[in-house]
């Protein structure tokens, strides 16, 4: 296979930084969104794969109110 001396890091380093930033941000956002009231008891939440329990939201709210 012929090798081509295409510069990759030199012109594209900002995109690598941006990819890292975006990956971090999106994963943080996904975690935060999964922990909202709407999705905390969703069966697709990866929390359940690790043996998480269903959170009783009504009880939580009551405790928060108290």
């Amino acid at each position, binding site marked *: 296979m012929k090798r081509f001396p295409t*510069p990759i890091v*030199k012109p594209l380093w900002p995109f690598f*930084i*941006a990819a890292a930033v975006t990956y971090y941000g999106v994963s943080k956002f996904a975690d935060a969104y999964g922990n909202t009231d709407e999705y905390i008891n969703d069966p697709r939440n990866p929390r359940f794969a690790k043996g998480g329990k269903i959170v009783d939201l009504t009880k939580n709210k009551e405790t928060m109110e108290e």
Partner: protein
Amino acid sequence: MLNLINTFINSPLDQFESQTFFSIFTPFMDMNNFNITTFALYTFIVLFIIISLFMFTNNNNMIMGSKWFITQEMIYDTMVNTIKNQMGGKLWGFYMPFIYTFFMFILVSNLLSMIPYSFALTAQFVFIISLSFMVWLGMTIMGFYKHGLVFFALFVPQGTPLVLVPLLVLIEMMSYIMRSLSLGLRLAANVMAGHLLMIILGGLLMQFMSINILTTILGFIPLLIILCVVMLEFAIAMIQSYVWTVLMASYMKDVQYLH
């Protein structure tokens, strides 16, 4: 761990649902990033298709490729011309491989998603919008690195009266920031809308055809209409990847040369 049973369609949006086929579970750390989901599977399929499009068509590394290779040449030629025309100057060659990679990925995943029972990678809003955000953020970093604070000159169109400058800067900045969303939203919304339209029309026709034998025979007329929609969707699949490329090249031009 292997979960291939759930292939029923309950709602039109089910086709965009990604299932986990394989996951590593450890109590010590979060291994969710290494799950093999539908998404990961299709990413690998796209990678395999793109590589095999090059590997199996180059006629055993002879000077001339096979008949299939002409398609590759045409795509490459189109990309070079488009990016050259959009960017101009001398820097287009540095970013051509990057934009070409995006084009090939989007084109192949769009066309792959047109096969029935397959998964639309480009209809995943989170993925596509993070991709476009990544592109936008990278370009912004590049612009600031290259031009420093002069980069803000991008927000002032040439020949603006001084009175209008603050307003225009505000508007231009808004539009510049919105690029990060609009680039991905355009693609994902188009692909998703196309797939939804097809599946909803298919469902309606299915219900109509399952009434009795007469409607089954009559149903072949709307089937032709769905065929036309499918053809349109194929066209959209190609056009959207091209649009992404053109926009990305023009954004790159903005960042590199400021106007």
